[in-house]
């Protein structure tokens, strides 16, 4: 038999590489801007399109799906071809995948600042883009499996196991978390409400971290690290164990994002224990990586790519230990909603994803351009400024998180909150926010240096668009003649591998989601909780548009420090009409679940116009455009009908008269404002926002008075 000659497609790798660098710079720059907004509200630039609530999702989407996403595809397209000894299945699909993905990102860059958002974190994009994502993901899957099928390597290597798990799990996560009912072309409502929606979202959110930020990177680590260090992988057995343990256990851990909320206790506890059990499987990857470097540590001293890899793996190890610790409810009670979580995710993002990406770029770009890296010195500078940047970022954020988390909980001996004014705790951490933005700027400057270095490298070399390679074609295997162990056998059956992975991740999914989504006793209803009025519903959608939930939670945990500060703790039945839920995950500002009736309408009017009028020193952006923009009531009927379809009990035919009620309620608020000498028309957006804010949490209050 003759070896076959074929060509690796390097051009697609190069394209994804360029996209990685460009989107990385953009995503991090946006991150830097919003970091500065958190102590310098003027950086919101007085425009609705650049205010924190709208731009923060742009930052997270840009770094996760644009920077990391393109890096994943770069790494997979490079390593998969070589591990399968085959060119990508179809050049056309590769191109569609590349341009489709960039189209998704561009549409995110356009729609998010326009306020088109589902409010689900890391899944903010609206339904048409969701469909586009699904299509592009399927294209990627076909291209990947096509390549695997026509491979010239009998067994599939551990890196590819991780790619397969990534593909199948992200598909499941994306589809389930995007089940929404369109209202208009740019607006939809989530099918699930309240607690159920929260569980679906954090099952998704947590596993997006697992299967977008972790498993593909582990796969890439398994290819690039042994290549860089020229050492064998430390343990094949460890690969098997930690791969299956990781994907099985990860999927269960989502509820640790919802500790002390109204999620049923059993689901919370499952989230806790599976998070703890996740330590060893996560560390398996780090150990297998670091021990692969055994006997090659002298290389680490000189080789900057290996330095990036080692720090990246260490950051991974730290973040995957810290995560389970934060899942313990006693720790979570302090850390949740604070900057501690921001520090935690950035150790992972900057250290693990960032540094691995940089290492791969520095290793791969010179190879596909058949040249040497332009400057080792600049790469070394990038490494050190990057490490310093991470430290300058993370340490102040940890400090800030502890400080604020403890301040929220502190009582005086008289039994009063020591810092009843939320703003006081915010002011205390502003110096740390300044430090953090300095750290972020350092990290970004390193990336700019890298971009220059890689550009110079590319210019001095010449791209090899189609790299020649040879391999023997696969012979037919006599299944009875082999003495393979079971896992080896699985490694040459990619479709079976896909199916088994799917089953493994579906077990946790079903056990956790199904009871909460189907058994009504998990969400006790409350009679006094009524659907939102049309005006409140419109106001709620404005609250979503402005991204208020990026900084304000709407869930009061059963702690003395929270019931004293915010009022009665949340009940599951209060959220049954919340499509989507708006619990938030960070308290840059105070919780708003019981905001209704705390202040007068005119307070809200003035506060939204300029927060510093009512709360001197506040870092909240101003929302002056709400004062001028007319509320779009043409959507009211469609919104009511969509809600009816989702089971919200508006009377039949209410969609036709909803706007009449809306105008009546709006006039009432406008009249109320007029009493305080605020002259405004009742058709402005701010009226709807005030109506919604004044409704928040009042159903339970009403209930209480009725009982008294």
């Amino acid at each position: 038999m003759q070896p076959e000659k074929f060509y690796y497609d390097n051009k697609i790798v190069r394209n994804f590489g360029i996209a990685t660098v460009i989107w990385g710079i953009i995503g991090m720059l946006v991150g830097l801007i919003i970091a500065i907004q958190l102590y310098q509200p003027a950086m919101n630039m007085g425009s609705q399109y650049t205010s924190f609530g709208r731009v923060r999702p742009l930052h997270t989407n840009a770094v996760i799906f644009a920077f990391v996403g393109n890096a994943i595809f770069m790494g997979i397209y490079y390593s998969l071809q070589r591990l399968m000894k085959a060119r990508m299945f179809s050049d056309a699909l590769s191109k569609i995948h590349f341009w489709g993905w960039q189209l998704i990102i561009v549409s995110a860059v356009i729609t998010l600042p326009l306020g088109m958002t589902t409010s689900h974190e890391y899944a903010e994009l609206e339904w048409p883009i969701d469909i586009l994502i699904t299509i592009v993901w399927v294209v990627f899957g076909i291209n990947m499996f096509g390549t695997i099928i026509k491979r010239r390597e009998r067994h599939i290597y551990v890196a590819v196991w991780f790619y397969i798990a990534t593909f199948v799990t992200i598909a499941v996560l994306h589809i389930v978390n995007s089940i929404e009912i369109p209202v208009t072309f740019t607006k939809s409502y989530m099918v699930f409400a309240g607690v159920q929606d929260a569980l679906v979202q954090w099952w998704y959110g947590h596993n997006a971290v697992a299967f977008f930020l972790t498993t593909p990177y582990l796969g890439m680590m398994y290819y690039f690290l042994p290549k860089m260090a020229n050492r064998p992988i430390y343990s094949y057995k460890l690969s098997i164990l930690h791969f299956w343990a990781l994907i099985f256990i990860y999927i269960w851990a989502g509820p640790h994002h919802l500790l002390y909320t109204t999620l049923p206790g059993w689901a919370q506890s499952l989230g806790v224990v599976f998070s703890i059990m996740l330590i060893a499987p996560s560390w398996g990857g780090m150990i297998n990586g670091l021990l692969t470097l055994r006997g090659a540590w002298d290389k680490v001293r000189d080789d900057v790519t290996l330095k990036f890899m080692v720090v990246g793996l260490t950051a991974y190890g730290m973040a995957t230990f810290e995560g389970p610790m934060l899942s313990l409810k006693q720790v979570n009670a302090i850390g949740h909603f604070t900057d501690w979580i921001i520090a935690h995710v950035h150790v992972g993002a900057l250290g693990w994803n960032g540094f691995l990406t940089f290492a791969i770029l520095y290793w791969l770009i010179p190879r596909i351009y058949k040249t040497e890296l332009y400057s080792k010195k600049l790469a070394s500078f990038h490494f050190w400024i990057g490490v310093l940047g991470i430290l300058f970022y993370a340490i102040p954020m940890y400090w800030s998180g502890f400080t604020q988390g403890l301040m929220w909980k502190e009582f005086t001996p008289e039994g009063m909150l020591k810092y009843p004014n939320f703003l006081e705790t915010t002011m205390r951490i502003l110096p740390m926010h300044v430090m953090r933005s300095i750290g972020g700027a350092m990290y970004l400057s390193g990336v700019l240096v890298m971009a220059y270095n890689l550009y110079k490298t590319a210019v001095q070399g010449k791209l090899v668009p189609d790299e020649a390679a040879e391999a023997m074609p696969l012979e037919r295997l006599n299944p009875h003649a082999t003495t393979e162990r079971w896992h080896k056998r699985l490694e040459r059956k990619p479709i079976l591998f896909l199916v088994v992975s799917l089953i493994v991740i579906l077990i946790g999914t079903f056990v956790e989601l199904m009871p909460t989504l189907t058994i009504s006793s998990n969400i006790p209803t409350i009679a006094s909780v009524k659907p939102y009025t049309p005006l409140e519903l419109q106001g709620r959608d404005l609250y979503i548009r402005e991204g208020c939930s990026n900084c304000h939670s709407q869930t009061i945990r059963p702690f003395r420090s929270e019931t004293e500060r915010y009022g009665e703790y949340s009940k599951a039945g209060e959220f049954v009409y919340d499509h989507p839920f708006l619990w938030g995950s960070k308290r840059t500002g105070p919780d708003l679940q019981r905001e209704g009736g705390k202040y007068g309408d005119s307070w809200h009017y003035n506060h939204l116009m300029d927060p510093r009028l009512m709360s001197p020193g506040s870092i909240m952006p101003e929302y002056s455009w709400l004062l001028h923009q007319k509320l779009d009531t043409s959507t009211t009927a469609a919104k009511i009908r969509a809600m009816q379809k989702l089971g919200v009990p508006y009377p039949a035919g209410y969609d036709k008269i909803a706007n009449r009620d809306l105008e009546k309620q709006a006039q009432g608020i406008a009249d109320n404002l007029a009493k305080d000498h605020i002259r405004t028309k009742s058709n402005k957006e701010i009226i709807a926002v005030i109506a919604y804010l004044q409704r928040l949490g009042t159903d339970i209050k009403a209930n209480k008075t009725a009982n008294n």
Partner: protein
Amino acid sequence: MRSLRYIFLSMIVLGVQPVFAADEGQLLSGDAKNYIGYGAIILTLIVLIIAMLIVLKAFKVVARLLLGPEGATTVKAEKAAAKAERKAARAIRWQKLLSLKPLSEEGSILLEDDYDGIKELDNPTPAWFMALFYVTIAFGIGYLLIYHVFKTAPLQYEEYKIEMADAAKAKAQYLAKAGEKVDENTVKLSTDPAVLADGKSVFTQRCAPCHGDHGQGVVGPNLTDDYWLHGNKINDIFKTIEYGVPAKGMPTWESQLTPKQIADVANYIKSIHGTNPANPKEPQGTKMTDEAGTAKTAMLQK
């Protein structure tokens, strides 16, 4: 010798530290002094380590002098041999603990598959790693048993009840001891400058955003004129502040201000009556000029 002097010096600094700390109203804040203290402690520890290293070095020099040049080399060689042995033993111990095979034997566990030049070793999963995994699984099972089967530890709502009961008890004890119990029935009118000063600072912080920095009224009503919505007696004002009038936008301050603070600020509000600040808000409520009048209007309103 010099290092000893450093140690003494830092001990003095440390000793003096509490004296500084006790002295209020100094140039340095208490926090800053604490930081100086921590710095001094860390510095002392570093100096101590350096001193110990110097003493060690000195011993070595003395030993070499006492043993003479030949003695020194033999001892050195013996020591080097012992050290190499210890190092080897330690390496083996580490390798055992980490379940590592010596690098030289690696060839025997190299697997035959070759993925684009990447080979794999057939090392076992490290024993400590497996131990860690089993311990976390045991923790998980134990956790579920404790919280959901035997129910020996409280879940969140029960935890909350316990926390609130403990807090109520602690609060009652403290208030009884501190004699700070004031409420709307026992609050007394006061013109004590200290009380008014305390009240003013609370007012500037909490009330001024809505009532104006001079009480002239902004979103909230004017507090300096003769017109009152909820009574002008000190008890009425106390009550209005304590429970608020949520329907009209006046927040409840019960959980944010101590009873004494409420009393202070109520007295401050009484004290600014009739000050006629600039830009007053138009009158709201009923005219009440004195304490008797209040009672009358209140009755009429009923």
